[in-house]
């Protein structure tokens, strides 16, 4: 039994490695104002889903993001151009060479507000950076799951290791 578990552990642990293979480095921003008690859980589900999609999510606070982006309010973030979204990102540190994507989420299930913006890095160089804006009115679990699935797909657009 122990031998079987050891073999299973080795088999699971030795995943094939490929040159250039790496997880996506994704900056995540929780942009709600904290008034809706359900927001924390909703954002947590988005972050957990990103972490489970072969990516390393790193969070930045709402205040730091808005300050860096030169914005006083976040209400109109769906209309921000991609450059403004990127300007809110802190400089990558440590092992992170640069952000592959920025995911900004304003999730307030209590008021039926589920908004997200996903900006991906510019690949191939010289191309136009991609920006995805998502809106689904509603507070249902299905609406949150839909938003999460679209966000993850958007965060991997144009990814290059």
């Amino acid at each position, binding site marked *: 039994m122990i031998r079987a578990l050891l073999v299973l552990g080795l088999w699971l642990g030795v995943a094939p490695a490929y040159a250039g293979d790496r997880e996506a480095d994704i900056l995540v921003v929780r942009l709600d104002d904290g008034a809706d008690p359900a927001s924390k859980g909703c954002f947590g589900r988005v972050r957990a889903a990103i972490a489970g999609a072969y990516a390393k999510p790193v969070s930045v606070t709402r205040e730091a993001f808005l300050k860096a982006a030169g914005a006083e309010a976040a209400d*109109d973030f*769906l*209309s921000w151009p991609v450059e403004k979204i990127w300007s809110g990102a802190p400089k990558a540190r440590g092992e992170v060479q640069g952000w592959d994507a920025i995911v900004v989420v304003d999730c307030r299930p209590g008021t039926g507000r589920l*908004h997200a913006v*996903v900006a991906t890095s510019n690949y191939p160089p010289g191309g136009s950076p*991609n*920006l*995805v*804006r*998502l*809106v*689904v*009115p*509603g507070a*249902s679990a*299905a*609406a949150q*799951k*839909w938003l999460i*699935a*679209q966000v*993850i*797909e*958007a965060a991997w*657009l144009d990814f290059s290791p």
Partner: protein
Amino acid sequence: MARWWWGLVLLAGVAHAAPPAAKAPMAVLAVAEAPLLRSEQRGLDRLGKQLGALKRPVTVGVAEGARADQLRAWLDATDPAARAKLPVAEALGTDGLVLAIRYAPAPDKLAKRPLGFVVLQATAPHEVFWAQGMGPVSTAMAHFIKILKELP
């Protein structure tokens, strides 16, 4: 005797039960500046088939004229409050539900991903889904259909 009586009441109830309300038809429309590529048309047709799960009539086509103009306005406006004030009658046409997908002009004949999509319903608030920069993805389709199933 009492058992017979209750049986008759039950049968009468079943016989007079109202049939389920018919669902309004749904249109899946491409909003495009150029003729669709074959790959885009196939994607649109596949989406139409997947939406057959909604148990409502689904048609697939290309938006034209005033309908296309109104759908473009919905797809272009990034402010939800501004979109809520946009007219919707032409966009909906005679359908109760409309899914409009915007395709990029592709003069180089390379397939590109959709530029965005919107789902509008006849009753206010009209907007059910709205997205710019991508189309509806297959990994989210089950949730997409679940939400649409709950609409009249």
